[in-house]
């Protein structure tokens, strides 16, 4: 018997069922999603990332960072994502409303980055400590620069590739005065062993954008579908509130966190 038309029809109908169920229906549900209004004068969540962070997302995509890093915090269950301090709550669809592409990742060769902007140094893959009481945003940014330049200098045992091509390496001379944007000499010395400012590491625009993107990664706004429970003993990791910048997220209140760092801190001199 000739079943040709039956197969054509069958293949089309089954695919149509799958398409309607798993593409069209989610589009009806997710495509209508709006930003969540927030209390206390904060912008609706999620606000779009600031320009340089949005450019950093392109660097993140182009270098394939999502091959090894997820941005998915799982709800509590048979996993330790929340206990590890990787987030205050699970990540939900709304967290990615303003992102394109949405780089949620699928493999954790390296740690999850959904909340890397507000992670406590002791919760990093290789823990470290802030040296100062107040300049935490700046210290965190410098840590990222150092880590991108030479991951194994700050995280011994890491298998992340070094991204030295995101930096300009230069030797100051009378004709070329030292760059104002160069990493501090003590960090350069730690990364390369060259002291006395004889050698400079200057982040290129791609590196700045990438770090700005990383510093914008925080999915911690309390949402209806993903409430944040703040218990008395739980410490709210919040790098931004430790600076003298206006805090975007006061601990203990229901104030929102935006996807935006409170103030884009200047690159340290």
């Amino acid at each position, binding site marked *: *018997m000739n079943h040709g038309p039956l197969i*054509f029809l069958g293949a089309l109908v089954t695919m149509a069922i799958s398409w309607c169920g*798993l593409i069209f229906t*989610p589009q009806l549900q997710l495509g209508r999603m709006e930003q969540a209004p927030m209390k206390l004068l904060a912008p609706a969540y999620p606000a779009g990332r600031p320009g340089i962070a949005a450019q950093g997302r392109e660097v993140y995509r182009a*270098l394939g960072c999502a091959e090894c890093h997820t941005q998915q915090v*799982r709800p509590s269950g048979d996993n330790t994502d929340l206990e590890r301090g990787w987030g205050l709550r699970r990540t939900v669809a709304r967290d990615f409303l303003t*992102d394109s592409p949405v780089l949620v990742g699928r*493999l954790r060769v390296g740690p999850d980055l959904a909340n890397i902007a507000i992670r406590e140094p002791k919760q990093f893959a290789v823990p470290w400590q802030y040296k100062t009481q107040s300049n935490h945003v700046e210290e965190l940014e410098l840590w990222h620069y150092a880590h991108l330049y030479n991951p194994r200098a700050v995280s011994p045992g890491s298998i992340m590739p070094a991204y030295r091509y995101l930096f300009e390496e230069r030797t100051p001379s009378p004709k070329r005065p030292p760059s104002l944007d160069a990493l501090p000499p003590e960090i350069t010395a730690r990364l390369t062993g060259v002291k006395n400012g004889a050698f400079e590491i200057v982040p290129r625009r791609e590196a700045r954008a990438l770090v700005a993107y990383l510093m914008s990664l925080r999915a911690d706004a309390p949402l209806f579908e993903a409430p944040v429970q703040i218990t008395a003993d739980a410490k709210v990791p919040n790098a931004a509130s430790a600076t003298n910048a206006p805090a975007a997220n006061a601990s203990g209140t229901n104030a929102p966190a935006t996807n935006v760092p409170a103030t884009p801190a200047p690159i340290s001199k």
Partner: protein
Amino acid sequence: MSVSSPANLNAAGRPGAVPAAVASPDAVHNALPAEAVDKSCRWAVWPLAVAALGWLFLGLLMQGVASFRLVAPDILSDSAVLTYGRLRPAAVELLIYGFGLQACVATAFWILARLGRTQFQGTAPAIAGWVLWNSGVAIGLAGILAGSGSGYEALQFPKYAGLLLLAGFGFWGVAAFLTFSARREPALYPSQWFIIAGFLWFAWIYATAQCLIFWMPARGVMQVVAGQWYLHNLKFLCFSAFGLAAAFYFIPKATGRPLYSAALAKFAFWTLAFFGAGGGFAASLPLPRWMPAVSSVCNFLLLTAAVAVALNFLKTVAGVGGAVAGNLSLRWFRLAVSAWLLAVLAEFLLSRPVIGEYFRFTWVTTAADVLILAGFVILGQLGAFYYMMPRLAQKDWPCQVSPKANFWVSSAGILIIMASYIGAGIAQGRSWINADTLFLESVTASKTWLAVSAAGWLLFAIGQIPMFANLFFMARQELRGCCCCCADFEAGKPTEVRS
């Protein structure tokens, strides 16, 4: 012994040997002899097969280098082109689009012509598709290495390359449809069901994914939905359809007996069509909870298709012994079908709450992908090529040892890759389940395994060299043999024509 010995070719390559189970007797007088079918396919299938093998070698090599980058991150680290985040997606794209789909289409063309007992009808569109598709793959590869990868697994090729691929596949679809319509054997064999559906399904899912991710980017996580839906359907619908079509065709050929049950094959087709298209959403993804739930159910129901396929193959090959059991095509397909069955099982287990959550984000999920993309697609299509290519060239493989070397080294490579990824994944899972252990410990624990996996990929790549050597010798015979064969040709041909 080799499958492609002339004796075997005559015994199993005769048209009618396979579709006997479903063939209608009145059609046979129309049928074109197998040799004539092969001849008509030659210019459509041969370029696809050779290009696919080239991409396969390059892809495996790049995957090997990428894996070594994880083990020795400071070597080759001065260039963005060679960073892991570009090499690895580029390699996977080559294995999926450069080899996988192109090889599936090449085999499908040949099977459609053979089972239809007709001349291949669309050589021109097939060649046009070949040009578009391969330029798409080459441009897409350059795009990923230059930093234009999309960031979505299996959809990394930039927009412009995706358009070329879609256009190329459209031409291939036309060629397949023309050949299918021109068939002289109206009764359909299960392989034809799978192939026709495979062409329709891939065009649909690829167009949908391109549309929602590149042409009119959907809002927020809808892009993830489209990407995951595409990836799952690519693996469990399109590759499964093309690969099972080849298996349903070649296993009876290799064993010399008809398929145990055409009805079971059709049952597998319908269960695959309904449930193969329903999975792909892991519970961890930031999506509404009903989506992983639906996925999990569909993955469970897909096991019915796996049972039907397993039963059919076990019954078909049951009791074959001696020379047939050692048949090369059968060896490749035995491994490929086992890989597919395991992949369906793994997909189900990884969508279960406890096991799935333990292994989510670990290398075990990569092992599951390798199982279907390398174990099923690469091994199965290579098995098909070993049967198909000598018949297209109308000459035997020059070297009889090299196919065996190719088989054994490839299967050893796959086993090493699988074992090392599973080992790495278990090490990660054990480390993560305790919140007090540092994340770095999971990296340290999996490092040795990753080194083994890199060796496995390189071994797999090296395993393909015998195949190329064989092809090279075959081409040289063809070229050099021209003059010596002329005499035979002149002597033989006229008698045929005159008689």
